[in-house]
């Protein structure tokens, strides 16, 4: 294998990207314009469908004979829209929250029974109450969860105490995560999907590039030289990974300029860009599959949407507003796992070593390499001079 050949072909591909106006627009300008337009005007997500929320509960109230905390858990379950998961400690609950396994964690304070008893003894005399605070940690990766869960919790506590909505209450719900960070905007929820979105259009570019080079005889010409298929494919993958990296950087700069500033460290950014790079490998694979079944560059443009649209609608920010069936279908496209991991990293504050992130990365890596191998194999089998 000669690095000289790989470097020359990679350089050629990058020059093409810069010098061909159509390619330049589709790969760089289109995602930037889209992010700007969408990010600036996006008004929110969510629909009218019935949803179920998974809430982790850590019960610190162990000294009670009244067993008030069990009453709260039962009341939450009775709402029919809350699935309660009980944790023995806050750390375990926080880990599951950061990995997206639950959408909120509620801490029942140690003096809850005492507070409830004080209220029931003198419901009309707030001066006699023992006030207490429930801490509520929310999944910052879910716009719907952050909006819906706090009022449900507050309403449930009010019901348990037998109060009316308007009266004062000894129980305060403090949404801890939202208190600590900046105000969350709709952009924060769609930004992770935008990083994924930008790279998806590489499918079209790869398909067009291969069919064009096939049509004008360039692939034949390269095959006549001592360049091996491995050297050629490596140069293509390197080129498109480089383009994906630049795309991700541009989209990040644009979302940052629009106000997306996640509180994460440099290692998280490095991991996120690595994830996007890995994802670009699958797009090269899908592009090759498209080129295999396309008779011309024009046909490749149209057929590439067979792969672009599922990735776009099922695996990026668009997926958050789709039906539950569509969201299940999303689990069959790599982009879903990329967006999910980026959401966990940027919004849920998950560590890059957490099981959910590592699982997403493993799924993305295995699926993307598999798609690339299938793409190369199909192209090699059916490509004719």
């Amino acid at each position, binding site marked *: 294998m000669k690095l*000289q050949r790989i*470097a020359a*072909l990679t350089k*050629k591909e990058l020059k*093409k990207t810069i010098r061909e106006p159509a390619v330049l627009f589709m790969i760089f300008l289109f995602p930037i314009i889209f992010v700007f337009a969408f990010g600036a005007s996006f008004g929110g997500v969510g629909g009218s469908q019935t949803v179920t929320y998974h809430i982790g509960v850590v019960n610190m109230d162990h000294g009670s004979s009244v067993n008030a905390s069990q009453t709260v858990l039962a009341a939450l379950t009775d709402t029919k829209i809350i699935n309660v998961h009980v944790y023995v400690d806050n750390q375990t609950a926080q880990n599951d929250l950061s990995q997206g396994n639950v959408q909120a964690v509620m801490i029942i304070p140690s003096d809850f029974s005492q507070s409830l008893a004080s209220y029931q003894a003198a419901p009309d005399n707030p001066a006699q109450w023992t006030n207490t605070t429930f801490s509520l940690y929310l999944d910052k990766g879910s716009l719907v969860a952050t909006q819906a869960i706090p009022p449900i919790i507050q309403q449930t506590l009010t019901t348990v105490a037998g109060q009316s909505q308007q009266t004062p209450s000894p129980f305060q719900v403090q949404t801890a995560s939202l208190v600590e960070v900046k105000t969350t905007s709709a952009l924060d929820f769609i930004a992770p999907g935008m990083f994924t979105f930008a790279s998806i259009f590489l499918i079209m570019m790869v398909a067009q590039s291969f069919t064009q080079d096939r049509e004008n*005889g360039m692939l*034949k010409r390269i095959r006549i*030289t001592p360049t091996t298929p491995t050297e050629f494919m490596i140069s293509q993958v390197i080129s498109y990974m480089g383009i994906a990296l630049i795309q991700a950087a541009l989209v990040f700069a644009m979302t940052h300029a629009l106000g997306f500033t996640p509180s994460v460290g440099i290692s998280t950014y490095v991991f996120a860009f690595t994830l996007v790079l890995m994802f670009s490998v699958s797009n090269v694979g899908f592009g090759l599959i498209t080129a295999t079944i396309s008779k011309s560059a024009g046909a490749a443009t149209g057929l590439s949407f067979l792969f672009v649209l599922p990735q776009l609608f099922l695996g990026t920010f668009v997926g958050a507003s789709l039906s539950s069936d569509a969201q299940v279908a999303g689990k069959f496209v790599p982009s879903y796992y990329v967006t999910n991991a980026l959401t966990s990293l940027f919004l849920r504050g998950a560590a890059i070593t957490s099981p959910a992130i590592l699982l997403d990365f493993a799924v993305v890596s295995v699926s993307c390499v598999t798609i690339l191998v299938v793409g190369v194999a199909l192209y090699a089998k059916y490509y004719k*001079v």
Partner: protein
Amino acid sequence: MNESSIVIEHLGKKYQDTTALEDLTLQVGKGELFGLLGPNGAGKTTTINILCGLVKPTTGTATVCGYDVLKESAKVKELIGVCVQETSIYPYLTGAENVQLFGNLYAMDKAELNARRNMLITKMGLAEDAKRRAGKYSGGMKRRLSLILALINDPQIAFLDEPTVAMDPQSRHAVWDFLKELKREEKTIILTTHYMEEAEELCDRVGIIDHGKLIALGTPKELIVKNRVNNLEEVFLKLTGRTIREEA
């Protein structure tokens, strides 16, 4: 004939029901400029594609500089240069960048590549336009650039598939002069063309192919004398009953 650069024995190629090449046997000597003549679809390009390792023959064998084109195609590719029939260049690269790219694909030494690139660009009359995007070139300039790409690696054997097709007379004569110079350098050249005057002007020997079969082989003069005609065009007409411009 000198030592053989190319040995073809009983070569055949079938595409489903179509026979593109049938039982072709011939040898091309080192330093020879051999013309492969015939109308479009006669089997010329199929022959070149087999010799370059692009297409597998259905029957027969072929060696290039002693290397089997099927079993040792990597070695063969290092020794040959091919000017394909299509005007294949990267339009978004400049002329010089196209040449540089293909030199790198042959893993040429940088200094040697630069020197040969400049020499070929000058000889083909593209020096003034070397830094322009190749997509902006005229048809003749693109064909000349395509020829440079085929010769950048200083090949021992050059396969030139219709190198002068669609060229203006001036460009065509520039290419002819260059081919004569290559011949003086003892390069072996396989030239396919359907311009009979080109073959008469340049070729040491010619083979005429029709419907995938070799129907005549010899020097242009031998074929003209043997068939008692005035030129190769008439040789082809006499042997096939058609002009070479007609489809095979």
